[in-house]
């Protein structure tokens, strides 16, 4: 609007509210201007994210009873969670900390199950994703189509993905259960109610879906490598392996670190695929425990576990950042 009237008049002569605002804004320092632009985002985040977060935190400070919230107990719920007193609000047999260090103890603990899921799935996703990215980085006929095809699993909604894996591994109709059971990887019957087998299926489902995401991130890193470096390496007589070890890998390492960071955060929050393929009672992830206790009306328990989960994710992220230094972010 103002541009239409700007015409031939000299800017300094003009006056009015709009001009005053513009002038004030133009004289702001870079930092202040940046904060001004960020203000709407802060307001939005504050009203739709920070408030519920604080409210959840407040709820986690009240005693949990089977009929609702009790009196103010401060950090008592967090103490209860780590001493096992909170376990009775979790669905079925799962506990928060492992009761023993045998298989049975580890698979019924929400904490070890979540860490196990996150570690194993991200590990394989990174390896497979890197392999895919290295292939996609080559020049070959039809590369564009392959790239599109490889991303399809990433676009499949989690409910559909869950149904696919449920149908593939459901013991009476799934075609994959008998051969894998023969190999000893899965329980032949009651497969999706067996903690070890269900975890296996869920990890495979997650790897299938998110390796493509890793591949795309790593591919972006690969393509930013200066091709000239390889020419130099060839002239110097470096083998393919040496090229990978001394050029490719060090240069994509920061990218891999970012990708691993994203995936780890997401993997630590796993819920949907578990609920569809098996159930939260069988494969207890931390988010599962939050959702289940919240749905049962145990808001204080849900809040406590939610904040503890966030803290654990924070710790994992922190250690990843420390591992890769500031370069990663």
């Amino acid at each position, binding site marked *: 609007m*103002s541009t239409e009237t700007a015409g031939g008049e000299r800017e300094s002569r003009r006056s009015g509210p709009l001009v005053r605002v513009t002038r004030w804004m133009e004289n702001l320092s870079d930092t202040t201007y940046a904060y001004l632009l960020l203000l709407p985002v802060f307001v939005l985040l504050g009203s739709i994210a920070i408030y519920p977060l604080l409210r959840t935190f407040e709820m986690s400070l009240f005693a949990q009873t089977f*009929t609702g919230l009790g009196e103010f107990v401060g950090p008592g719920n967090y103490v209860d969670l780590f001493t096992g007193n909170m376990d009775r609000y979790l669905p079925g047999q799962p506990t928060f900390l492992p009761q023993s260090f045998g298989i049975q103890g580890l698979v019924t603990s929400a904490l070890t199950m979540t860490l196990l899921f996150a570690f194993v799935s991200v590990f394989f996703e990174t390896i497979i994703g890197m392999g895919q990215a290295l292939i996609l980085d080559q020049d070959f006929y039809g590369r564009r189509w392959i790239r599109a095809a490889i991303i399809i699993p990433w676009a499949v909604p989690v409910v559909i993905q869950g149904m696919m894996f449920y149908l593939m591994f459901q013991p009476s109709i799934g075609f994959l259960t008998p051969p894998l059971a023969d190999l000893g990887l899965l329980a032949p019957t*009651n497969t999706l109610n067996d903690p070890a087998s269900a975890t296996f299926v869920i990890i495979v489902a997650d790897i299938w879906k998110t390796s493509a995401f890793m591949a795309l991130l790593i591919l972006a890193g690969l393509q930013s490598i200066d091709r000239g470096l390889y020419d130099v390496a060839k002239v110097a007589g470096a083998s393919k392996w040496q090229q990978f070890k001394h050029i490719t890998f060090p240069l994509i390492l920061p990218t891999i670190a970012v990708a691993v960071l994203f995936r780890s955060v997401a993997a630590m929050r796993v819920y949907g695929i578990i609920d569809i393929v098996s159930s939260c009672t069988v494969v207890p992830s931390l988010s599962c425990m939050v959702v289940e206790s919240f749905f049962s009306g145990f808001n204080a328990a849900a809040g406590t576990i939610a904040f503890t989960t966030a803290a654990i994710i924070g710790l994992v992220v922190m250690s990843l950042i420390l591992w890769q230094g500031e370069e990663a972010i």
Partner: protein
Amino acid sequence: MAATQRKTMSNNHSDDDGQRSSVSRRRFVAASGASGVAATLAGCADLVGGGDGGSDSGDGGDGTGTTTGDGGSDGATTIQWGIGPTAVQTAGEEMKTALHEAGGLRDDIEIEWVPSASDTGEVRSNYNRILNADQSDPDIFQMDNGWVNIFIQRGLIQNLSETLPEDLLSDINENYFSGFTDTAREPSSGDLYGVPLFPDFPTMQYRKDLVEQAGYDPESENWATEPMTWEEWSHVVADVKDNADVEYGFTTQWDIYEGTACCTFNEVMSSWGGAYFGGRENLFGPVGERPITVDEPEVHNALNMMRKFVHDEGFDGTFADYAGNIAPTDILGWIEEPSRSPFAEGDAVFHRNWPYSLALTGRNPEETEDPALGEDLGAMPIPYAVPESEAAQPGTGGTTSALGGWHLTFNPNSDNLDVIDEVVSAVMEPDFALELFRLQGWLPPRPELFNSDEARDVAPVGRYMETLQVAGENAMARPVTPVWSQQSSDIAQSANRVVGQETSAEDAMASLTSSLEATEQN
């Protein structure tokens, strides 16, 4: 990625800064100013236009909105009713008609079904979420008698003793199954929070044609009213299965879900003389003071018998007289509908399920597109292991049917509380109850109607009325207390693992005892 960023930054640093300080800020103000003005104008235009529309030209544009609004002032009210998805699929439209015709509901009150889930545990979570959020719809919730109590204790549903007219309340007090109605009351005050819609008693359903082909005579042997022992029954199943071309002998539900804890496991355990918390008198508490009696020989036997049925396991000859291998391992993942479908399709000889299954499976196959058995469907009381006189826990033993059934409860935040009385009155109409019995197999909640000739004449479920009456006399409620939902998932998981041969009955029940103790001490 980071490398790329660094590269770009260093290359473009100076240009970027130069552009940013002079041009972009003014453009930004201009753009945001322009869009702000545009938005304001659009908003005003809308307001002004809307206001004008009220007087003349707006009629066309606001057509739909006005109709609904007018309808509201004329009194047409839509009541949202949360209900199971199978019931809506089976006879959703017919039930609406029945409410108006048999129940006498005013025509300007319309019912809209809001299907929930088929797993009762999921329904509970869903309604918990809705009511905790103070959502105003659905107006009516169909709630399992097994968990209405939890909603009452948390103060989430409408207290009907305060709002329903006296004649309806006294009708419920005097003429309904009192044991069933009690599950909709607040235990200490006795206030009513739900209108009993239908009690539910499961039966053992079977293929009469196959059984007769194998040489049995259900009519003269009184299968319909005289319960068999599990031992005798297991041989019948094995025998009939061997003589017929069917895939399964016996289908039931043993998944990790509420239904296993409340019902299938509870029935088998009780028929062996076992119980979760001592005898019948401890079913509803006092929590923390009652004994926990799952780690007892009768409970181990009940679980081992199921294992025998599924895996034909020997257990050192304990079950040598029983036939094994009559139930598929699939039961470990089945809830009601998945276990009913092979039976309805003719692939199973015996099937344990609720009366709705009699209504659906008993339909004449020529009159429905769904698989059905018609007159070939038979029903008998669920078999037992020890008679009541020999039961270890008082009040158990003999044939046992879990007490199921659903109540109608009301959303205290509903905008339609003024017409709730009329819906309740229509629902309580005996003719409507008979229609539900015919359409869905939902048993009448009034004993007088339940035992009447009218009910017996309702096809197809009326054919099985004798069996249902035996089941009703031997019903066992689940131990519903505020801690039951936590206990039930623990119980279901333990029962599932034992029958899945992942652990022994002794170990599983010992660890179940300690986790039940933890939930009891609160």
